[in-house]
């Protein structure tokens, strides 16, 4: 087993052991913290497919995080007020069912990512960063000025949505659900990476003219990667909304995009468990330093700078060395 595989196993196990310990120690707040970290990790796993594998520096992934969040908020708010979403041409009712909400969140994010990607991927470099940012900002202002779903104040959901057979209000059960989804999205990322698609996407990042010369369109590879990426980040948004039982335009903010990018870069760009390490470290720092000083972001910034300057492959790169990729 490679060093990275051992590290990944430790990260996956640690992510499970910590909340279990918190559960036995009756510290529900720490379980919630771990849940938050796992949700952020999922958002990062999504971004990593675009940023790490595809080299697409998106500063607009808050768009998908927010769409996922609002998909949950809209469906659940209609369910809690017993008003249908749509009566004509056919009846669409709200729902409190997590699986349904997830599917809607992922579909909506996928469509948004296809649309945003189709336009932004015609540019590259700084223009791409700016255009993705602009799309997310558009959605941010749209959410602020849309009174039907809370506008600027956001939208509270009074009861957490349900999952068959689980009591989702119990922190440890909700954590288990999020954890399982985190592992599932990592599995998807691993599959994508090893597949012919991942091979071609990875090559398109390094030598697009070569990819074209073998008859593959880099644009289409990137668009598909962007869509998969947005879909996963959208799922994270739905979970985040459910964790807080609250949706607000802040989910669309550029700070959110920046934070998702921090998870990926801090943990290790293009490393399978990079976003997991990054999100865990981010939450740990926020929890430990945030209590000491309001300016903990300064420390985070310094750490990020160190990682970028000295360990280009983030925490995973520092601990596991260069990537050994086979099979």
């Amino acid at each position: 087993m490679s060093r990275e595989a051992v590290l990944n196993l430790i990260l996956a196990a640690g992510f499970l052991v910590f909340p279990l310990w918190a559960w036995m120690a009756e510290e529900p707040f720490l379980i919630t913290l771990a849940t938050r970290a796992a949700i952020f990790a999922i958002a990062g796993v999504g971004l990593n497919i675009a940023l790490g594998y595809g080299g697409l520096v998106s500063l607009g992934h808050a768009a998908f995080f927010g769409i996922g969040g609002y998909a949950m908020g809209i469906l659940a708010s209609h369910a809690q007020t017993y008003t249908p979403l749509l009566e004509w041409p056919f009846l669409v009712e709200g729902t409190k069912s997590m699986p349904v909400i997830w599917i809607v969140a992922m579909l909506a994010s996928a469509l948004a990512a296809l649309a945003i990607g189709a336009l932004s991927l015609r540019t590259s470099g700084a223009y791409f960063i700016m255009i993705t940012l602009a799309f997310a900002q558009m959605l941010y202002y749209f959410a602020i000025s849309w009174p039907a779903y809370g506008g600027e104040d956001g939208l509270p959901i009074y009861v957490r949505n349900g999952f068959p057979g689980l009591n989702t209000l119990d922190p440890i059960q909700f954590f288990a659900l999020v954890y399982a989804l985190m592992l599932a999205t990592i599995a998807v990322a691993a599959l994508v990476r090893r597949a012919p698609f991942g091979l071609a996407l990875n090559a398109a990042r390094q030598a697009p003219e070569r990819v074209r010369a073998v008859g593959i369109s880099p644009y289409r590879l990137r668009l598909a990667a962007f869509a998969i990426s947005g879909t996963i980040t959208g799922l994270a948004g739905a979970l985040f909304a459910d964790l807080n039982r609250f949706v607000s335009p802040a989910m669309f903010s550029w700070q959110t995009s920046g934070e998702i990018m921090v998870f990926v870069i801090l943990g290790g760009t293009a490393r399978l468990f990079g976003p997991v390490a990054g999100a865990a470290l981010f939450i740990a720092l926020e929890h430990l330093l945030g209590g000491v000083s309001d300016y903990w972001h300064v420390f985070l910034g310094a750490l990020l700078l160190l990682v970028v300057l000295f360990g280009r492959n983030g925490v995973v790169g520092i601990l596991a060395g260069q990537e050994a990729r086979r099979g």
Partner: protein
Amino acid sequence: MAEPVLAVEGVCKSFGMVRASDNVTLDLRPGEIHALIGPNGAGKSTLIEQICGGLEPDAGRITFLGRDVTGLGTVQRARMGLARTFQISALAMEDTVIENVLLGAVGAAGGAFRFLRSALRDRAFRARAEAALEQVGLAEERWMRAGDLSHGQRRALEVAVALTLSPRAFLMDEPMAGLGASGSQRMTGLLRELKAQAPILLIEHDMDAVFSLADRVSVLVQGRVIFTGSVAEIRAHPEVRRAYLGEDA
């Protein structure tokens, strides 16, 4: 005479004041190596780029396999069976040798949008990739990163990727550049083998290689083809000797 595989007719391309292609007409026939020689800046790479679809000609027509491809993009032409190697190696340098070659196998099969199986473990892709590595003599290096290869090995890897496409025509931009004597000899042997698979339009400065490989030679000077003929004719042609070989006639 057999129908040419590839035909360039009256192609013109200018960059500002520079006429990189000046009414270029040439063709590539089945089973031949057609060498394109000319001094630095003559417009050889620019012509290759237009044949591949990376640059649009200002005027003229390019026909491949009897079809007018002038309006098609690089991807479509590659899918029709046009394989090229780059003057400056264009490889995924962080990836292993085998992954670079697999990319060609994936492209040839139109398999870039498969998600479920590992590319490395796909029997068909792998077999195709390994065969290409074997043919260029890089099988031992399959797990090395392309970025760690020597210059000569990278040139060979470029050819291996082109091979996986099972192309109908090869376009090679200075495959021997910087190879040294033994490297050039090995590459010359390889190109002689490849000619049996598909005709080659070969840009090359190495005259020993050109004279030993080429069935026909075209001379490009300042964007114009000043002469096309057999190796013997090229050696004898006074204008060519003056313009290109730099000799007094």
